[in-house]
């Protein structure tokens, strides 16, 4: 999935109402960038807290896209969706932090790479 394939949408945005402001394509570009950044973060970070941060990036990149699409289609569904996602993201992070605390209390290293007692 490359950005180039978004060309039709870019065109659609370009010929759209100039009052629309920021074209959809830019929303999507930023959103995609955030998503990749999030993925990169998940792949490179070893501290669970930073991992959760990266996950937040992933979810919020989707939020951005949702909002962008919502504006593009001029509907509110996307906004609702984005709100739901925020709640969910918060819940996830809460659980994550709880786990981190539990890990800490077990005097285990806060390093996901060391959490590999199970494998194979």
């Amino acid at each position: 999935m490359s950005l180039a394939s978004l060309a039709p949408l870019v065109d659609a945005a370009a010929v759209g109402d100039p009052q629309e402001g920021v074209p959809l394509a830019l929303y999507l570009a930023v959103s995609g960038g955030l998503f990749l950044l999030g993925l990169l973060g998940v792949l490179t970070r070893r501290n669970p807290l930073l991992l959760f941060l990266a996950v937040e990036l992933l979810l919020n990149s989707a939020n951005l896209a949702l909002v962008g699409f919502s504006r593009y289609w001029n509907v509110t569904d996307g906004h609702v969706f984005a709100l739901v996602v925020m709640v969910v993201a918060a819940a996830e992070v809460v659980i994550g932090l709880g786990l981190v605390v539990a890990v800490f209390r077990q005097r285990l290293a806060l390093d996901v790479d060391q959490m590999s007692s199970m494998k194979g």
Partner: protein
Amino acid sequence: MISVLAWLVLGLPLLGCVILSLWPGEPDRRITRVIGVGFPAAAFVLTAIIFVTLLGRDAEDRLEIATLWNWVQSDGLSIDLALQIDPLSVLMMLVVTGVGSLIVLYSTEYMEHDRDYRRFFAEMGFFLFAMLLLVEAANFFFLIVGWGLVGLASYLLIGYYYDRPSAVAAAKKAFVVNVIGDIGMVIAAFILVRELGTLDYGEVFATAPEGLGAETGVATAVALLLFVGAAAKSAQIPLHTWLPDAMEGPTPVSALIHAATMVTAGVYMIVRCNVLYELAPYAGDLVAIVGAATLLMAATIALVQVDIKRVLAWSTVSQIGYMIMGAGLGAYDSSMFHFLTHAFFKALLFLAVGIAIHALAGEQSLDRMGGLRRHLRLTHAAVLVGCLSIAGIPPFSGFFSKDEILATALDAGTLGTVLAIVGLVGAGLTAFYMFRLFFRAFWGPEPEGGYAHAPHNPGMAMSAPVAVLAVLAAVGGLLQIPGVWHPLKDWLEPTLLADPGLEATTGGELIVSIVSVALAIVAIGLAYWIFVADPERRLRLAGAATGTRALLTDQYRFDEVYEEALIQPGRDLGDTLTNGVERYGVQGTMEGVVRGVIDTGRGLRVVQSGLVRGYVFAMVAGVVAVGVIFSLVMR
């Protein structure tokens, strides 16, 4: 009536066998004797009644089919469990039950000292049943069944002394060689079924000229395949090697099975199938050539054998060679005539020699015999009758029958002439080796150190059969005297549907008679000169021609060649397959596939590193892969 009698003749020996086998515990020897001899004797009596009955009928009326039930019916092929009573089978039945009864009678005394008394008579009964089935069968299928079952009986009796490894090996060899023969016959039967759709003698012989055609490949194939069976059963080259080894069996067995009856089954079969052989003249010629080659080969081997029974065994091979040669050339009635006289004199020889062996507590080597005539006078006389008969000295039976084959051969074109000459040479050799046996065993000096126990004369049970056979061997030849009468030929006439009508000319008869008798007398004289006149001469001559002698002693090394060329490679192949193909191919492929899968699994374990970021990476890669697939599928 004849149907019932025919089945009774067949069933009585089997019944005896079954009774003896199932008798609880070890039956009393007297009971064994009564059953063992009584049932075959009864069969002989019934056969005689059949014979007389048939004799009272017109020649055309002498055919009777006794069907018990339809054995199988499948896709047009119908096989009846049926017997065919006609002059040829009655002749065979007479010999089988007659000589058979005499020999079991003889055995009652001969086997006296053996533990497994009952088993012997049970197996003899089984043999008689199988042999009778062979000769009485009304179709090729039951011919083959009888053929196979006599092989089994022969196997059992050769291996009678089952704790003796040589006997066990000989039995196995006989069996396997005979199975090879069976297969020839079976394939011939396949062809008959395919071409003619039937296996009944009557229908086959009636339709064969049309169905197979004369001088066609199919007819030749049938004839040759049948001959494979005959060669195996009748010990013709190259399937002859089992017969000398078969002498491991008790002597009465050798007399009955491996001399008088079973081994001549091949001759019977060729005569029975005369129609087929007349359709395939080349096959007939080949049969005759094989017969001639066999007779010459066997005769030469017999010259040097030391084991007295082996000499007789090779002489049997040689004599059957005559019969096969005659049958191959189309002299069917002559062949049967020689079969008849041979049954008498060869049974006689075996039984008489058996007396000597029995008297010497199982000794069979000529080297440890000599001067027996002083101990066993009557036996000596009997052996002399047998030797004169086989050597073809008139008026003993062998003279008439052998000369008839040779004389008829002269009438059968160039090939016949050549073969007749071979036969004459063989006749000379025969006279020499038989009298070598006779002189070395019964004349000459006693072996060094004399006999441990003085050879004892046999009782009535052994003497009587020998006496009867001696008389038959002496006068049996008178049954058919060229130019005077030929009742045997007339008797067989209805069954020889395609008799080519070879006729021994008087001139031929004369030439053959004179030459053969002259050769025989010279050979006997030579034997006397070497073995009796000066016993030392034998030892002096033994040094000459060692190579040839060794070759002959080794029986032309057929066994060795077979071992090297067929059996050992077979074993090696079996081992190679076991250790190679089976282990690495069949099992190995399976294991290899399994191992490959398991190794892949191990590899996957390594990939499953426990590192969560690796898992995420796999997911990302998966997303990309799925995306690629989607974009590829996308039109």
